């Protein structure tokens, strides 16, 4: 009904502004949703929702950030329906932040499949911040706005999420019998 009162909004303009971000949105959704079907539903909803409110979007401003904001709004809506959503209680405790000297060794050879498996085991609250920062290269401020989180929470979740991913990667490597390359088992220092 919104579009009825804004007949000048053309779908061609919307597609020109929004569709270039389709790959990024899909990849993020795919790495956060439980499976491909859910990711596709999510992305489709994002675009239909964005089109309905496109008259409120100011052309020339950051369309990518706007679409990601919608993505996370829809994602959180979806997540409430996901019974298997990861629990994150205790992950943001101060003790975790202080444990800075414990560094997990990283395998020299990392396969995409291993990364994806490791990432899938990182609780979603951390995973989404890691993806926005390290893959989509959003600033802390943009992430805070997109996810409606305080800046400090974004920073702590990113730090913790990176550590968790690294631990999971090490676990995957170990399960294959790969010893993290060059790490000294006594000190953790590379040779």
């Amino acid at each position, binding site marked *: 009904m919104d579009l009825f009162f804004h007949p000048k909004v053309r779908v061609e303009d919307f597609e020109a502004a929004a569709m270039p971000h389709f790959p990024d949105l899909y990849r993020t959704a795919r790495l956060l949703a439980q499976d491909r079907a859910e990711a596709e539903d999510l992305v489709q909803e994002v675009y239909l929702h964005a089109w309905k409110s496109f008259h409120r979007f100011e052309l020339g401003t950051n369309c990518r950030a706007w679409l990601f904001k919608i993505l996370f709004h829809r994602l959180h809506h979806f997540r409430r329906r996901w019974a298997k959503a990861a629990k994150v209680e205790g992950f943001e405790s101060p003790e975790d932040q202080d444990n800075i000297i414990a560094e997990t060794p990283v395998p020299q050879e990392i396969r995409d499949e291993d990364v994806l498996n490791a990432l899938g085991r990182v609780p979603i609250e951390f995973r989404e911040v890691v993806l926005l920062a390290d893959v989509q290269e959003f600033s802390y401020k943009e992430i805070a706005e997109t996810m409606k989180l305080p800046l400090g929470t974004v920073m702590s979740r990113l730090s913790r999420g990176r550590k968790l991913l*690294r631990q999971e990667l090490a676990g995957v490597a170990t399960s294959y019998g790969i010893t993290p390359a060059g790490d000294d088992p006594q000190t953790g220092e590379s040779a």
Partner: protein
Amino acid sequence: MSVLNFDSKQCERIRRHLDAYLSNELLVETTSDVLRHLESCEGCSRELEARTRVRDALRRAAASQVPPEELRQSIHRQLRKMQPDFLGVSLRVRMVVALAGIIGVVLGTIATEHWIRARRGRQMVASVLALGVSDHIQCAIKGHNYPEIANPPEQLRKKLGPQYAGLLEVVQQKLPGFEILEAHICSVQGSPRKYVHFITRGRGTILSVILTRSEGEQLPNGTAFRSGASGSVNLYEAHLEGMNAAGFQSKEYWGFVVSDLSRDTTMQIAYELAPPLKAALDAGSGSEARADLNRGTQVGVPGGKGCSSKPRRGRSRIPTFA
């Protein structure tokens, strides 16, 4: 997981900055500190390299997720379906909305006019009935222009004159339980309007039956304004100055029953009285008297003063009778 051995507080401080350094979120000065330290600290450089390796691996893995082309096409098709057809559906919808708006305005105007008419009608009923109330209060109640013992009918007929004498019998017959104490033609001070005034006593109070010329004005006929009907005679009512008044109209007269009796009692009396009074007035029993009223002749009032509204000292309260 293994624990790195470093004894430098500096390393610990720099590593706290590595996440922000990796995200390019550090201030320039802090970035310089980190870079200086990395140049001289192999352990921290290796740690940064490890973190960068994980990040790059994550970017590569994410990029390996190929967005399905069919999803892009599906979204494209759905967007086209949702595009308003400016010459089709939305135009029709707009026309319907516009038409609904016009109808709304027309209905609103009609409703407003109806409301204004109703308001004017109610105001008119109140102002007409106020005539009867003011004569009752000024002449009968405050003026006390009636005797304690009823004037004999012959005298009342004489006061009314032959033109209205016939109405005396109608009032007497249709007001059982009420005694006609006085009947005359009077006026309220400050107004040229003349009233045929029957002052009666019954049910412990004074009740007036009053007639006056309508001068061609008609009370509104809508059901919203009248309070009832007796036969073909519409009855109107109002509560003014502590009095209940019931009114009706004939061809050329307004008639009133005014008292401090209850609304229902006053209306019931008017219900009985209005049809025969109207019939008598319409039949012309008062035709000659109309001429008298027009001339301002005050029948049966010595000196032509009638029962002016001048209240009599000490008699202004509403009399009650056992």
